[in-house]
């Protein structure tokens, strides 16, 4: 399972890429996309939405199920990746490139794992 080195991760398999101290992009890990299999539909938040840590702020639908995406950050949605609306398969093809939303004015975050910790977490959950 591919884990992007410079990203941070949640236990619910979202990734966070910090663009600066206060701005970050959020997406789904390679493990998440492989568990869900082919993704066919994505619901994204709106620009300007205020999100809190743990809010379900997007959802992705695969042929298996619909899954909520939980915000690992508190802040304001400053951009969404609209390309995914027409091409949800990008999440399967390039999980670490296919960001869902960009969050600015980050005022809080859940405890995140770095790549090494996330790899360990995946190995432990597989047992």
């Amino acid at each position, binding site marked *: 399972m591919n884990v992007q080195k410079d990203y941070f991760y949640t236990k619910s398999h979202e990734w966070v890429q910090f663009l600066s101290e206060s701005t970050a992009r959020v997406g789904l890990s390679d493990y998440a996309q492989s568990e869900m299999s*082919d993704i*066919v*539909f994505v619901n994204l938040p709106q620009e300007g939405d205020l999100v809190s840590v743990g809010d*379900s702020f997007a959802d992705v*639908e695969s*042929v*298996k*199920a*619909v*899954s*909520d995406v939980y915000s690992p950050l508190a802040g304001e949605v400053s951009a969404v990746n609209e390309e995914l609306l027409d091409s*949800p*398969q990008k999440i399967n093809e390039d999980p670490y490139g296919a960001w869902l939303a960009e969050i600015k004015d980050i005022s809080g975050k859940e405890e995140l794992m770095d790549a090494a910790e996330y790899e360990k977490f995946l190995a432990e959950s597989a047992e």
Partner: protein
Amino acid sequence: MSKLIFERSVEGRGCSLLPESPFERTELPARLCRGKAPRLPQITENDLCRHYTSLAQRSFGVNCGFYPLGSCTMKYNPKVNEVAASLEGFTEVHPYQPAYAVQGCLEVLDTAERYLCKITGMDAVTFQPAAGAHGEYTGLLLIKAYHHHRGEDHRNKIIVPDSAHGTNPASATMAGYAVVSIPSAPDGCVDLDALRAAAGPDTAGIMLTNPNTVGLFDRNILEITKIVHDAGGLCYYDGANLNAVMGIARPGDMGFDVVHLNLHKTFSTPHGGGGPGSGAVGCKELLTPFLPAGQVEKTGEGYRFAAPGECSIGRVKSFYGNFLVVVRALCYLLMLGCEGIPAAAQGAVLNANYMMKKLSSTYDIPYPGPCMHEFVMSLQSLKDDCSVSAMDIAKGLLDRGIHPPTMYFPLIVHEALMVEPTETESRETLNEAIDAFLALYEEAKENPQKLHEAPITTPVGRPDEVKAARSPVLRHRFGEE
């Protein structure tokens, strides 16, 4: 794929199915007339019959074979229900007829309501909702109206365990609530600590299925409903799995305030493509002022429709719901009686445990029983060992004349197959199905490629689900479009 009826159409062919009208023909003003005739298929009666017969032959229902679709309760629909529902007094009525002219129909609604109240421990039942998710939505509107009436509109969150049916969070969202998902404990039941942490002054209620979707009766049910009530929320019972406990344990006694019943599951009315359904909603007295219009009441002079309460949420469907479905359900209730109803539940639980026990030495059972009316198997280890997935086993069952169980649900079990045999299957049928499951397991080990290619005997094998979901073809396009 066989041809669509539009592709069978030939210009100039036809059959006259409509009798001559006895009324004088009226010409509409030209501005109200369409410019072109509708493109109805032109086909002879013979070809039409063959078309629909061939479609019918390609479908699979409970009348064709074993159909253990978990959480769907695909029980046999007794034919006597159909006899009752085709009686003229029920079919040749109009919803605008005055109450005195349809006393029998009103008696059906009243009697069915009383019986279902007794089974659920509720004080009133509305038959308006057309199906299960519609019932959930209606029940949530009752909860919402209750909080609103008490000036507690700030209660905007509904708690839903992660093992719930997908319709629960969807209905809560439709009703304008935010959904708080709480994890299940390792035993598959509600994690009480997680529930305590989630319940608070913004809690409108909880939606719970009991027995839950892994087929277990939550032992902490009284504590669960108390935690929610103490926080000021109400408790919603998803009746999808009532078949396991009907006539034995009542949602009302467990502490629930509102419940929906799928008459098309538990009470043996046609289900799936054979519907329509009925998502009857029962509630305790504290919610009755908010019920939709259409409640029947008995007076000295007979039955009548009660005037809707001032706080009623209004209608959620036209008239009285799917009335003939209620007739079928009442027929079922009367045929089984107060001894037969719990016996049916016991039979459902016995059949599920029989199958689970017989399969448990071969297949992984993540929540070992005893189970209630259904059980869940995980095919993760089979997938790891020989790359045969839950999907492959399901496709293999098709070649053996069995409808596959529910797949990939509940989401908390990997490679899940969820089996619900129901009480209407004989021991012989269960044994045949058990043999099929065991044989498929052997085949997965010995010849996985064969299962990857299954099914080979059905008219449709493995449709491209991804393509169907990403670019669905939703209607026929005529040549010139």
